[in-house]
């Protein structure tokens, strides 16, 4: 099996350890990740999607068309990219007039045309459905005896009517994916709540975003977890960088380590903290490393 690997922006340009662990994991489970040469920002749903639907849909269609040219489905490990590409595909597949309008812009400006032949998929869902929990568990060398606050993020499962990945109010897919490493997913108040960064809010009104994050951190801390695990580099950045901003805005002292699911799997596969670029993150990973050793 092969699949087109959509990088997006934040993962590859800020947290490359996520990319490193993902490439290694997919290689181990026998899925070839094919580079999408010349792909761009998805583009960001909160900014482009909120400003000009035509620009947003055209740039997204160009990205999808790159994978169509490769004859592959797309995998992304960012909820924002997943949401943007998935929604753009849905818009164009269901509205022939819109598809013609966007293809006219693509014909004028690029070498691509959008056909609708590639599916858009999320990394966690590919691992769960195509690889399976049993096979994944075989890849791991050491059990991780830690308590985890799982953060689903918003655009992984929602809108459920379109995504069709199951219930979003009380899901278990990520908890199952975390627990095969030996870690325990600990329930906490308002677990399905947003991190606060999306919809263009982080860049526009950061103090409001920070207030969302504070509520999440309060609830996670009360549950007594060792770290946060997410499946979205934007949520990841919000919990990592945003945690300092919470401490600054509220005088708190939160220091929860933040891991993307790929990084958690990286630790379980025996990768070092340096290979997973934890050193470039704001929150110290040391307490987690200490506990698993």
């Amino acid at each position, binding site marked *: 099996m092969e699949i087109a690997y959509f*990088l997006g*922006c934040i993962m*590859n*340009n800020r*947290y*490359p*350890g996520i990319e490193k662990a993902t490439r290694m994991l997919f290689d181990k489970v026998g899925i070839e990740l094919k*580079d*999408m*040469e*010349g*792909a*761009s*920002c998805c583009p*960001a749903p*909160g*900014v482009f999607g*909120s*400003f*000009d*639907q*035509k*620009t947003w849909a*055209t*740039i997204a269609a*160009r990205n999808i068309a790159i994978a169509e040219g490769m004859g592959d489905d797309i995998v992304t490990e960012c909820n924002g990219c997943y949401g943007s590409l998935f929604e753009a595909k849905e818009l164009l597949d269901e509205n022939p007039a819109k598809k013609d309008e966007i293809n006219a*812009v693509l014909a*004028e*400006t690029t*070498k691509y045309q959008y056909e609708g032949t590639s599916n858009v998929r999320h990394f966690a869902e590919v691992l769960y459905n195509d690889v399976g929990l049993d096979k994944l568990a075989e890849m791991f060398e050491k059990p991780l005896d830690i308590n985890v606050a799982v953060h689903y993020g*918003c*655009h992984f499962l*929602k*809108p459920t*009517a379109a995504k069709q990945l199951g219930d979003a109010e009380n899901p278990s897919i990520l908890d199952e994916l975390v627990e095969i490493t030996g870690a325990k997913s600990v329930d906490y108040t308002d677990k399905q*709540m*947003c991190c*606060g960064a999306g*919809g263009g*809010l982080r*860049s*526009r*009104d*950061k*103090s*409001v*975003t920070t*207030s*969302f994050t504070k*509520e999440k951190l309060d609830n996670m801390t009360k549950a007594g977890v060792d770290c946060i695990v997410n499946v979205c580099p934007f949520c990841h*950045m919000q919990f*990592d*960088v945003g945690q*300092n*901003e919470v401490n600054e805005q509220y005088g708190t002292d939160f220091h929860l380590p933040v891991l993307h699911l790929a990084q958690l799997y990286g630790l379980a596969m025996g990768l070092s903290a*340096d*290979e997973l*670029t934890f050193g*470039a993150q*704001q929150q110290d990973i040391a307490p987690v490393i200490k506990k698993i050793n």
Partner: protein
Amino acid sequence: MSVIDRLKSLFGICKDSEIDETSTENDKLTSEQTSSNESSVSNSDSKIESSKSIVGTDKEEEVKHPKEKIFSKIKKAEKISEKSLDSSEGTEEDISVKSEDNSEDAKETDNERDNMTLLNDNDVYTLDDIDFDFKERFVEAGLETVEHCFQCGTCGGGCPSGRRTPYRVRQVVRKCLLGLKEEVISDPALWMCTTCYTCQERCPRSVTIVDIIKFARNEAAHAGYMADAHKATGKFVIESGHGVPINDQVKALRKNIGLEEVPPTTHKYPEALSEVQAICKACAFDKLVDYQGL
């Protein structure tokens, strides 16, 4: 000076003080907005995030909204004064009649009744406030579920933004349906939605609320209501193809762990970046975010 003239001058003073009050509110709004802008800027030096992506928000633009509100408030204040003047003659007669009757209690009852009034005349929308095309634009865009909303409020009940900001998602949907375009697009609260979909998931009428909010934001952006910080993110994509572009520190980090130093995106392929820029130009996105140079 007649009693009526004295009353008129009295209400004249009232009118001025109304304006003073709203001006003060304007100042307050402006200073709040400015301080939040400053906090955005002060956070920009964080280690991991591109500091450029969060430079400044549009102070001038933010100031514009409260000002517009103030003008309408002043207009409304004038209306009240006029109405008060019109009714003052009657009131004077009433007072004289009532004082003859010594009916102080009846007067108090009237005041209580006034306090219980749910709407004042100036709270009522008129046809002048309605843009009849506005709702149709939603329907044409495939968002016909805006018409299905029955205002139960389930959306607002679960909204994490509504807990901490003036964003009232049920009201926005209602205003879109009513055609209150200017009120919807000029309200900065429209931008408080994180698109978390909680409202949409729980809506018993399957209204595509998030798409409605995003469409309303498109209308707002095209009417000039856009924060500078958002324009800046748009500019990053025009310049690099990425909302969060790479930097030298991350290039080194990538190399250290055995990844390609520059990812195989628009960062590596200039011709790919040219295509993204051509799309932005063809869709006039560059003009929308005030980008010069395409």
